[in-house]
């Protein structure tokens, strides 16, 4: 399994990278600057050499353009169009599923995730490849559980593939 990670600097992304390597998978890290158009385009250069793109980094856009994570997704959807043996995992913040009136965090952050969610969900409604998984999650929590789950998903990617994962903490766990 060859995996491209857009980032490996957060706690979760570092833990994922370590786990992937332990599994024996080849990991490439793009270290993309999501506010630099050239850097975003450069990430696409890995498309031919990897099986999975883990689109795991969000940075707010400093221009009027679509935010970098969404543009990374665009690039890989384009390069892997109709290719059913390629996989994209989009890590989307749970705020994408929260109503505006119920969300107390940063408005732009939520809007970016809502837009990204809408864009990739529309793609997922069609039947052709690549295989896209939208994982709605809180990237700062449940690190170990997320790592275990993503390893399981990737390990079984040839048999079953989730187009959607809403990854909650069990109720009552307020730690």
């Amino acid at each position, binding site marked *: 399994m060859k995996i491209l990670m857009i980032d490996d600097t957060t706690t979760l992304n570092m833990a994922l990278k370590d786990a992937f390597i332990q599994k024996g998978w080849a990991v490439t890290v793009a270290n993309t600057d999501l506010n630099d158009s050239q850097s975003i385009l450069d990430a696409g250069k890995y498309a031919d050499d990897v099986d999975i793109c883990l689109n795991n980094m969000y940075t707010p856009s400093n221009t009027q353009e679509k935010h970098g994570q969404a543009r990374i997704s665009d690039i890989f959807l384009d390069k892997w169009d109709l290719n*059913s*043996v390629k*996989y994209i995992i989009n890590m989307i913040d749970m705020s994408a599923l929260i109503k505006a009136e119920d969300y107390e965090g940063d408005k732009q952050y939520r809007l970016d995730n809502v837009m990204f969610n809408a864009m990739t969900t529309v793609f997922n*409604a*069609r*039947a052709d*490849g690549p*295989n896209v998984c939208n994982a709605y999650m809180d990237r700062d929590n*449940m690190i*170990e*559980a*997320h790592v*275990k*789950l993503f390893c*399981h998903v990737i390990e*079984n*990617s*040839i*048999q*079953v*593939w*989730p*187009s*959607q*994962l*809403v*990854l*909650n*903490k*069990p*109720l*009552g*766990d307020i730690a």
Partner: protein
Amino acid sequence: MKIVITGHKTGLGEYVSDAMIAQGHTVKGYSRSTGYDINDADVRDTILLENLDADVFFNNAYGRMANIDFEDQPTHWKRGENGQLKLLEQFCDAWKGRTDKYILHSGSKIVYKNIQKVKQVKTYRIDKMDCTALIKTYTDIGLGPNICDFSMGMFDTPMADVWPDYFIRGKVEDYGKTMVMFINNKESIWPKEVVFDNPGRVEFGPVELAKREGWL
């Protein structure tokens, strides 16, 4: 852990039941072949009352394949008269506010497909949609129990035998493995909604399906 499973004698229910027993958990199984038809209100009451102390309810059996007519919407089919939906509702109500209880629901990816014009799957889709809608109502409230709407594509169970051949079947164990993984990790992460399918499959959209059915 005590786990209640409907439809534990075939397919996915059997896989999860065997896996849980192998891990040393207590499984209480209910299947039509062992005298438990979830379309019967008394049977549902029995299942609920015998298992209020369970940790996990795997709402697996659909129970209405016998009522599905692939030629048209059968006259005897009534919306909401669905054993799986009713049992789900009963467990949700009984475990309301219980954050230590978990319900894993066998849903269908068909809910997310706009194939209403294909008559053969209409009734099944409506039944599954009603379950998904009910789950969303409970998960939006967020008081408990923990519910996971586990939507799947088709796989090779006896239930799939009655579906047209052009629906592509995955394998029971492929979905089963993930369900077992979810149950085993339920206290650290609990996905409230997942949509799984077979990757790289040739899948038919509404137009292609309608053509195959002779509608177009």
